[in-house]
């Protein structure tokens, strides 16, 4: 997904759109839509920071900052007491440790295997023919969560299909899948020595079943921002704003790219 946040004192507008194979053109589209929503013209935007996997594919961005730094900035803005951030997206999952001043002090990432990311649940939801936005709630109806023994996404998918054939209720399977993903993520973030407040963000934070599985395994309550998909983009906007404010204070020039939507040729 491609997300845009336009910020002045507070968020003026935000849009979440799909990221297709033609990332560079899509960044244009989502940006145009956000500008429309904010009733702003492109040249009115003072500074643009891009983040995430596609950060190098945003032709009009003035600076690129990693999603680790941006998520942390966005979350600290929303929860000043945040110490541990868990970000579960469709591409990867991350744990970020923050100190009392809001600075990132350590992080861990899984980007090697789909089984440790939100993709794991997407694949299983698809196999069971259940819309992604319903799997979390459905898993909460489970009375006997199934133990999923395969770690690999593809094998877990097969395991779910054969359990289904044996008559295992869908809710129990889904609960098992959520526990399985939560188990891997908790093991990864435990390396950071988890401390309260724990904030869950990214697409995974929209899934109630995952929130429950994570907080049970962490043995702590897990907080979720109101709009977990945009915390990275919000952080990027906040970083951009700070950079501009700093430059103005120090009277140093602000270098920006031209505010035009270019159709970038993709090889």
């Amino acid at each position, binding site marked *: 997904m491609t997300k845009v946040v336009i910020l002045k004192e507070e968020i003026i507008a935000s849009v979440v759109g799909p990221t297709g194979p033609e990332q560079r053109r899509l960044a244009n589209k989502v940006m145009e839509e956000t500008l429309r929503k904010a009733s702003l013209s492109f040249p009115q935007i003072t500074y643009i920071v891009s983040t995430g*996997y596609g950060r190098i594919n945003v032709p009009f961005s003035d600076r690129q*900052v*990693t*999603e*680790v*730094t941006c998520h942390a900035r966005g979350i600290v803005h929303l929860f000043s007491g945040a110490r541990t951030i868990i970000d579960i997206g469709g591409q990867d999952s991350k744990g970020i440790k923050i100190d009392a001043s809001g600075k*990132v002090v*350590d*992080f861990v990432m899984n980007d*090697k295997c789909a089984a440790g990311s939100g993709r794991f649940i997407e694949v299983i939801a698809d196999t069971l023919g259940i819309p992604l936005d319903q799997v979390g709630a459905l898993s909460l109806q489970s009375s006997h969560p199934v133990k999923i023994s395969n770690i690999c996404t593809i094998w877990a998918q097969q395991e779910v299909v054969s359990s289904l054939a044996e008559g295992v209720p869908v809710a129990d399977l889904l609960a098992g899948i959520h526990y399985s993903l939560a188990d891997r993520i908790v093991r990864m973030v435990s390396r950071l020595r988890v401390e309260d407040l724990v904030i869950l963000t990214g697409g995974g934070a929209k899934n109630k079943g995952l929130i429950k599985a994570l907080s049970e395994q962490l043995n702590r309550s897990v907080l979720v921002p109101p709009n977990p998909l945009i915390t990275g983009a919000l952080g990027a906007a906040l970083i951009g704003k700070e950079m501009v404010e700093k430059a103005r204070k120090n009277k140093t020039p602000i270098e920006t790219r031209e505010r035009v939507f270019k159709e970038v040729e993709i090889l």
Partner: protein
Amino acid sequence: MELTQGKALSTVERLYQDYGFRARELKGQGEKIIGYVCSFVPLELIKASGAIPFRIRGNIFEPITKGDTLLETIVCPYYRSCFDLSVKDKYEFLSGVVIPHGCDSMVRSFSTWSYGLPYSYFHFVNIPTVCEESSFEFFEEELNTFRKSLEKFFGKTITDEELSRVIRIYNENREKVRALYELRKADPPLISGTELTMTLTAGSSLPIEEANDLFDQVVAEVKARGSSPLKKGPRILIDGACLDHIELIKLVEDLGGHVVADAICNGARDHFPKTDVTLPPIKALSQRYLDKVNCPKTYRANKAGTFEGDIANRFGDIGAYAKEFKAEGAILYVYKYCDPFGFEVPARKAYYQSLNLPMLHLEDIYSAGTMGQLRTRIQAFLEMIG
């Protein structure tokens, strides 16, 4: 980053890119080239036998193919790449190969090397994995066995006088490497990490006298820059096993950091310790290789009695380098299935914490294909400490 590249650094780049071309030339002139891996092969003995030691390198851009029909994937990817290139005749100019007991992969796969490759000389250096009084006694005998084996193969006696002379040449080489490292101390450094590792890697493909000349020329050329052409950025120490390619270092430097210090095999681990010239040569070599080369494969008894004291003893050299070169962060870069480093990660992590030095732990598979994944982590780390 645009650095002026004079003649010496152009030579370095050519030796690095077309690795082994000088050895091939020398072989054509009738010289004997002996390949080796790891920091634990006493190169002085090979040189004193009249042959030229040549460090076998892997290639992260070359997929491992033929090698995997002979070696299982439990062997670390770096070592598999070295073997794969050897099986594919990349090092056809070698007369033989010497492998030490540097890790599990080296000891377990030695026989595979010896029957999988067409060379006429193979030797396994049985360096102890503990470092006690009896280990030195054993290792001295083991060095004499290696000496006899070389004497037999080359039909030439290795005298103590010759060995002492060669030890001095190798010590000179280590001083020249030190001079290269001195160029890292400025902020921003006068020499980039990419240039330095490329220089050391190029040197490991040359006869020692030629490497010495090359290092002198590089030092002179870089000094002539006067001031650094680089932009200031976070100063990074790289810790890990053999990093015989520049891609990781280049990635750090492309993202605005500078690699200014290291504890890697073809860096400080290999090149800093010198051999004591006041001792009989075999005794001196035994002490240098067994004790002074600080590798996690060597078990050192906990003399401090506490965990904190133990890690301070074992990793003290890293802390000293971090201080000397003013490192602001460290990257611990470990190959998947690397047994010596893999086991050490938690202790090393604790050590960096005790130094208050931020550390990024990366596990990788010795492939150019993973550099994109590493990019986000390294960039986030630089943002964190910057």
